[in-house]
């Protein structure tokens, strides 16, 4: 205990004698590859946890949208008789699957910082891994769901070479989901109302997007809104790929452009605001 009697060196003295450069404590260490791998790990974990413990497991990823599409088809073709066309079940299933991925990604990305507060308060890390991994995890089911959609397209006889466009669909969902999800996640720790705003906003956007209905049956006065709805291009592209709908280049371009802009804005805003997450979450 003799060493304990030495008095504490003053900071100024030590700072000048220190030969090693010390980075600020809040600087994030680790390569992009390291945190990218962690994002992937977190996405896999989220994906696994979603179905962990249920008997049917991954089966729910197919069954849920199928049941929903079946109910909606019955409702709109047999009860209200507003939907037409022999392909309506495939039409609505395509829309539902894409919408659920987008909605699930945005919702869980929004709350992801608060959901992982225990880690953020303890381990220095870039918080952006949380919203990114949430969006990634909802997209993991897409390749498997595509199989169902393609089987549907074969069954309805609408499969063609356009199906090669299908892989662009999850890319667009990823861009839009990441951009919007990071943006909303950036504000959620400070303003918890954001969660409800997002949920309500998504409900509105669901009906503003032709998921259940045919856009050509919209009154002309409302059709203009479709052009500024980035989700329209996504579902429209999926239906081009699977149902031989004419390719709407304009709508797809709007989705892609909006997605790219959202990602940039979302990440920039996130980087600015995430510095206070450990204090707020």
């Amino acid at each position, binding site marked *: 205990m003799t060493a304990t009697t030495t*008095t*504490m060196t003053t900071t100024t003295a030590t*700072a000048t004698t*220190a030969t090693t450069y010390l980075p600020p*404590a809040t600087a994030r260490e680790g390569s992009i590859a390291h945190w990218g791998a962690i994002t992937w790990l977190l996405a896999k974990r989220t994906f696994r946890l979603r179905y962990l413990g249920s008997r049917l497991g991954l089966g729910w990823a197919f069954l849920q949208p199928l049941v929903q599409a079946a109910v909606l088809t019955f409702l709109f073709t047999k009860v209200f008789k507003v939907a037409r066309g022999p392909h309506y079940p495939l039409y609505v299933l395509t829309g539902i699957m894409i919408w659920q991925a987008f909605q699930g990604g945005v919702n869980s990305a929004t709350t992801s910082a608060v959901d992982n507060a225990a880690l953020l308060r*303890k381990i220095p890390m870039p918080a952006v891994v949380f919203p990114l991994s949430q969006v990634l995890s909802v997209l993991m089911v897409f390749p498997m769901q595509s199989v169902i959609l393609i089987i549907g397209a074969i069954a309805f006889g609408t499969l063609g070479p356009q199906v090669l466009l299908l892989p662009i669909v999850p890319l667009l969902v990823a861009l839009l989901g990441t951009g919007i999800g990071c943006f909303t996640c950036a504000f959620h720790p400070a303003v918890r109302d954001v969660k409800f705003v997002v949920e309500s906003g998504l409900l509105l956007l669901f009906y503003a997007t032709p998921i259940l209905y045919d856009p050509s049956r919209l009154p002309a006065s409302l059709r203009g809104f479709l052009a500024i709805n980035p989700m329209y291009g996504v579902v429209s592209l999926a239906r081009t790929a699977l149902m031989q709908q004419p390719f709407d280049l304009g709508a797809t371009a709007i989705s892609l452009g909006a997605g790219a802009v959202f990602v940039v804005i979302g990440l920039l805003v996130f980087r600015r605001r995430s510095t206070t997450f450990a204090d707020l979450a």
Partner: protein
Amino acid sequence: MTTRLVMTGAGKRYPHPSLRKRSADAWSLKDVDLTVDAGEIVAVVGRNGAGKSTLLKLAAGVTHPSAGEVRRARRVAPLIEVGAGFHPDLTGRENVGLNGRLLGMSDREVKRKLDSIVEFAELRAVIDSPVKTYSSGMFMRLGFSVAIATDPELLLVDEVLAVGDLPFQVKCLDRIREIRESGAGILFVSHNLAAVQSLSDRALLLERGEPLLSGGVREVIGRYHELLALGNRGGELGAEAGGQAAVQLISARALDPDGQPRELWDPGDRVLVELVVEAREDVGPSMIGATLHKEGGGMIGSWLGLNAPKIEPMRAGERRVFTLEVLLNVAAGGYVIDVGMGDEDLSVTYFEQPAVHLAVSTRLGSTGLVDFAPVLVEQGHG
């Protein structure tokens, strides 16, 4: 000398939760200058709310300083809320994988160290069960084991001795010393003054977010004891007991049989507790009592002075000094002696409050609750 952590005028002010205007005392931590060099263990002591956790968070870099600057070595292992962030539904193995990666280990490193992590945590049998089936001790052992497996340059330890049972604690302390030998700087926060005393090279005392004293461990612990004895609101003892009490405790200190103040005691020591009381009004004959508690824990013994001489009536404004001799037959740890005073038939209690805080050292090898004073009396060939 390589430096592992430098804080320069570091401070933290948390935004007020209700978004009201910021008041001057919203600072959780202020004006901290602190360095931790390689191979050094620096302890931070202070009462609850003194800013110790905030200091650790600033050092970890999970929170940004509102003032000043915090710089540190790249590889940090925060032993803060160990196990926090484990997912209850995932197995121990899966949680180690993710946690290790988050703490900066590469995939290969995690795989290579997994066995030794599990070994250290003593959880081989259950490592493939979901951690929700673990006891809280197992949970913390696993968290601790992952964090210290990272070969950190800077180790941040919050209440290390809260982890697991005694043999595991000893193992942790050994491991912490090993990490120090390997050249890491260690910053450690504890209420366990015996641990602070035996581990640290230097110490920093925080009080209400501000550094009160930094320097040698004995000096800092001594000052901390004075602070604890002064009661919770600062100022003189008895101030918080209400100005109305007829008799108030003015000061209290712990002295050894030679009448000298001491910071660290051994099991079996005799302690003189010197109390100064002042009567605020005339009182009749009164009685005195004392209680021994484990720091932050339960009562060990209580004594009501039925065998003590009656305390003569006191006049208003009169001061008296009482000295209680206490036998400290307790094991290593932090202890508090509460003293109380009341009137003869115990219908009125004048005061009853913590008087002295005692740190009992581990150096005689006595741990647990009481010191049962074993003596090796014979040694022969059977």
